[in-house]
């Protein structure tokens, strides 16, 4: 049963991350996703201090706000202070992450978060934290409910806003011309990324969220040219990684989240080498004759 809950949590995290990651990598904002996943830390700590519990809702709100603040700060440094964009990202997230770590050390007695957990989470503990109703009925692990709710939100967001998200990612000029607010959808997307990061935080930690945000979409990007196919493929790749990662971790007795990230990397290498259309070991044979004709 534990294996089921862990794999389910992993798959739900992978679904949210892979879907949003497709938009991030197409907008060339993979590193903004990385930055947000680090920078939500102070938000989580502050929400924890204010409410004194690991309740999900305040944490989601606190981290969601921090995520938007991060995007805003990066934009601000880049646009108004003219800091070069990669440096703006680097300065912002390390600064916020440092504040988060300092807050954890200052309130070490009151905050039940340790530094390792922040980096790589502990998905193996998911089945231990059960949600038990007042009637004494066990509803299964609490984390599964949180991440499940977020997954539904993200799915709704992408289905309802599909056209707007698609346009603002591929052709912001056209989107603006037909009256779609690019900055509104930009910030909505970033809020979604922050929510996903926080919901996944306890189970997979800050950096492995990035693995799931970037690796499955990048792999899918090498396999298809159709955006809808890319969304579906990256979700499948993410879920496969969650399964395979769990058994890899059991086999070598290590961190499950680390193993999931390792598998996503392995998937990418396979696609990079053998993708039917773009694999570097395959494409030469297909592309060269075309070039000769030209």
């Amino acid at each position, binding site marked *: 049963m534990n294996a089921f809950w862990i794999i389910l949590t992993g798959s739900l995290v992978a679904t949210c991350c892979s879907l949003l990651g497709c938009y991030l*990598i197409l907008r060339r*904002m993979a590193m903004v996703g990385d930055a947000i996943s680090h920078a939500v830390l102070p938000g989580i700590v502050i929400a924890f201090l204010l409410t004194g519990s690991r309740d999900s809702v305040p944490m989601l709100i606190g981290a969601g706000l921090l995520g938007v603040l991060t995007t805003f700060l990066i934009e601000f440094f880049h646009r108004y202070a003219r800091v070069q964009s990669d440096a*703006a990202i680097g300065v912002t997230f390390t600064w916020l992450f440092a504040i988060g770590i*300092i807050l954890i050390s200052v309130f070490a007695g009151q905050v039940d978060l340790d530094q390792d957990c922040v*980096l790589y989470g502990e998905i193996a503990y998911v089945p231990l934290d059960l949600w038990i109703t007042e009637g004494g009925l066990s509803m299964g692990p609490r984390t599964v409910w949180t991440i499940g709710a977020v997954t539904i939100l993200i799915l709704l967001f992408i289905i309802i806003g599909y056209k707007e998200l698609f346009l603002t990612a591929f052709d912001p000029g056209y989107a603006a011309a037909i009256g779609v607010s690019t900055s509104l959808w930009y910030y909505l997307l970033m809020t979604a990324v922050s929510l996903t990061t926080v919901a996944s935080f306890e189970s997979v930690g800050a*950096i492995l969220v990035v693995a799931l945000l970037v690796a499955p979409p990048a792999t899918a990007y090498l396999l298809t040219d159709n955006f809808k196919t890319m969304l579906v493929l990256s979700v499948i790749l993410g879920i496969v990684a969650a399964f395979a990662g769990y058994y890899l971790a059991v086999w*070598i007795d290590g961190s499950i989240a680390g193993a999931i990230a390792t598998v996503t990397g392995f998937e990418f290498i396979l696609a990079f080498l053998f993708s039917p259309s773009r694999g570097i070991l395959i494409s030469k044979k297909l592309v060269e004759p075309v070039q000769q004709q030209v």
Partner: protein
Amino acid sequence: MKEFFEFLSFADANVRYVTLGSMLLAGSSAVVGCFTLLRKRALVGDAVAHAVLPGVCLAFILSGTKNPFILLIGAFITGWISLVAIDFITSRSRIKEDTAIGLVLSVFFGIGILLLTAIQHSGNAAQSGLDKFLFGKAASLVGEDLIAFSIVAVLLLAATLIFYKELKLLCFDETYAKTIGFPVRGLELLLTTLTVLAVVVGIQAVGVVLMAAMLITPAAAARFWTDRLGVMLVLAALMGAFSGVAGAYVSYTAPAMPTGPWIVLIISMIAILSFALAPGKGWIARIIRRQRNKKLILEENLLKLLYQLGEAKQDFSTNRPLQELLQKRAIPAKEAKYGLGKLKAQGYLEKTKNGWALTHEGITRGRRVVRLHRLWELYLTQYLHLASDHVHEDAETIEHIITPELEQRLLEELNYPALDPHSAQIP
């Protein structure tokens, strides 16, 4: 205050190690960071920092010891592989650089975590302390570490000094460097190696995540104060070293405080203040400059307006009421009043009951603006063959910018003309 002097006296050997160690680390990684920043590859340092972890773990698994030298070699190898992987992925597929960085960073780190946890679970007692690589251990630096840091710092600085000219060219004009026969590939490798070296050593002080800040933040801050590479390097190193010392001081006075995050927090504060306050490039300086330009334009427009009114009636001495001015040109009344007041204080205008009139100086300055406007219109029609009804807007902007030297050139080019394209006299 007593604590401060105790700290400065370095009487405590531990304080000495921590302070000097943080200073050397922060200073030398800042220097390397300047080059990666200028090559617009700042976040690459972040990837290397994360990619170091699997190397450390593999070195431990293979050698079975925690000899820092062996662990550093392992770290160096995977750090280096990660950079090569980023380059390879971006050049051989359609994956963009930011995606490649995020991918390599998180996957290498995932592998590292997997290995690290596997080692921890294996029950090998020798493993404790490996996780120091995650968050750093600046507060527990010892003499041996200090020796290693000093060697690396000297190496980094020496390499920068020896190859200063080559690296500079690589940052600013890679194509030119290639044409004049510099070994660009070799230099890139050198810079990569220096970055990895700085990261591998620095990571022990501030940890995986915050290492990126040690490379990027001082360089980004220093960039705001100067345009000269040499000055930038020195400034970045000083800022880095200062934050190293300050971080060590904070954790000395409050032992529960982690040194690494404090170093990062302090250097970030320096950077944010630089972004805001640096003269010339800072945010506030830019706002002030914009305000000043706006004021200048308003004043010149008012003078021009009064001059044109006077010119139309061939009479510069009559006072004109505000109403008449606003009829000819739509300026918000409040702004116009403010500008007129300013001009009066500067002696360009006189005010009586009936309204405003130009003084002698006012006529001269107003005439110049009108002349520049008409000269530019003429230049556009004659040299760019624009229609005479298309040139006014452009002249409205440029009339505030043209310098006396440029004015002279225009006069010469146009052969001291008398009339503009709208057949108005050029005064």
